[in-house]
């Protein structure tokens, strides 16, 4: 059973919540912490992603954050003493037109100016790397790609377990099957939560419940710039080693890598409508498979083993929020859209910093909740306040 009071309560036992608790204990010496999870740890989006890690961002508000995450990934296994199967096998974003090449050159240059590795490859270099792509008469010919060699994949479940064990070893209580059903207010401040396992009080409460942020925030009377959307992912039967890194198709939306077990792990666009259902519909399945066939027809006869859906916390500009809320005592970590997995270490690091010091960490300063009202948006895709297009 959870104790009746903690210094900090983190709502949400996914990667972000557990990483937050771990860094609170490790970096800030705050170990009187509980992580409350309504199901079991890692049962939400931490177990539903396509395991990709990268820091190939354009905007100055985003890049240093994701690069800090990449640096934490690079030292994660030593730090946690846990094999998270971090594999820097490279992330290659293909381009299919001159305009897209210019866009990727710009992004690559922005990355290099932030000290992040980026290489712009021409079609020949891509063909040497991935000879099985369709270079003969494709509708959208491959002109080249932007490669981040330090990007790659990590074992998503192991990340959850590694953070959980390391946090637990430092005295953090991880409480499963404990759903938050309400917030307790005293003198305008939130001082605790009502849960399915009783009342738990805390000086500070952090929400890390991406996917369900609007629902939990509603319990505190907050309305947020977030929509929940479903994103599907797929895994095929296991085949021999075939795809060396992560490859993304630039003419549609399709990304693929091969797990160490041999399955092809892939996905594409959001279904495009509000959903909490954790499952999607067939038009998106068709679209993803068409992307696969346009890019690498060689996998056409590989059978899909499983597909699933995760609920994405789509913020209105496609970038996350790590900030205080208008209510004292309540802190927000949300809006991860479909990029939350790669952010896990830095999200935990920066949220822990915010909870410990009441001020944002230097690399997460742009992730303010009030940026939508003030106009300081972080719209990496440049599509405006239409979450299903991010």
């Amino acid at each position, binding site marked *: 059973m959870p104790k009746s009071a903690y210094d900090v309560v983190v709502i949400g036992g996914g990667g972000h919540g557990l990483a937050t608790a771990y860094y609170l204990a490790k970096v800030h010496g705050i170990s009187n912490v509980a992580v409350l999870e309504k199901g079991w740890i890692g049962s939400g989006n931490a177990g539903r992603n396509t395991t990709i890690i990268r820091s190939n961002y354009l905007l100055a508000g985003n890049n240093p954050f994701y690069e800090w995450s990449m640096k934490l990934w690079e030292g994660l296994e030593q730090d946690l003493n846990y094999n998270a199967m971090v594999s820097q096998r490279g992330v290659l974003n293909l381009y299919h037109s001159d305009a897209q090449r210019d866009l990727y050159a710009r992004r690559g240059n922005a990355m290099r100016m932030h000290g992040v590795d980026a290489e712009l490859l021409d079609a020949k270099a891509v063909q040497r790397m991935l000879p099985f792509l369709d270079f003969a008469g494709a509708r959208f010919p491959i002109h080249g790609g932007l490669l981040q060699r330090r990007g790659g994949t990590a074992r998503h479940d192991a990340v959850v377990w590694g953070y959980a064990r390391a946090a637990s070893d430092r005295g953090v209580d991880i409480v499963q099957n404990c759903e938050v059903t309400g917030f307790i207010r005293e003198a305008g401040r939130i001082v605790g939560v009502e849960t399915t396992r009783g009342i738990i009080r805390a000086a500070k409460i952090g929400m890390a419940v991406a996917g*369900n942020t609007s629902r939990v925030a509603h319990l505190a009377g907050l*309305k947020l710039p977030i929509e929940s959307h479903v994103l599907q992912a797929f895994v095929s039967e296991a085949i021999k080693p075939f795809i060396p890194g992560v490859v993304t198709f630039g003419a549609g939306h399709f990304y693929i890598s091969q797990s160490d077990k041999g399955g092809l792990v892939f996905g594409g666009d959001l279904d495009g409508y509000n959903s*909490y*259902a954790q499952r999607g*519909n*067939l038009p998106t399945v068709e679209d993803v498979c068409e992307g696969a066939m346009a890019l690498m027809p060689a996998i056409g006869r590989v059978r899909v083993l499983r597909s699933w859906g995760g609920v994405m916390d789509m913020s*209105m500009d496609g970038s996350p929020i790590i900030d205080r809320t208008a209510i004292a005592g309540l802190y927000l970590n949300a809006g991860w859209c479909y990029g939350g997995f790669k952010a896990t270490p830095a999200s935990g690091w920066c949220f822990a910093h915010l909870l410990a010091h009441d001020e944002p960490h230097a690399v997460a300063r742009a992730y303010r909740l009030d940026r939508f009202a003030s106009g300081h948006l972080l719209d990496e895709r440049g599509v405006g306040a239409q979450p*299903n297009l991010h």
Partner: protein
Amino acid sequence: MRIECPFCGERDLSEFAYLGDADFKRPEPDAPDAEVRFFEAVYVRDNPAGPHDELWYHASGCRSWLRVTRNTRTHEILAVSFPIPSGGT
């Protein structure tokens, strides 16, 4: 997911495009609190888990805008109508 278009009948999801929350109303630009109202209208959403009123466009059919009430937990379509009662042609 299939949507019963009041003009065309029940059609597959692939014929429709999604816009979002059906209750968007353009605030009065001359109101003293217009800045706050616009922020709320453009960015803030109820995002309910359950029945949700939303706008869909029957792009590959009659090209009508539809007001659809749909359960976001189950994808069950609860009601479909034209957003403007006299519209639909």
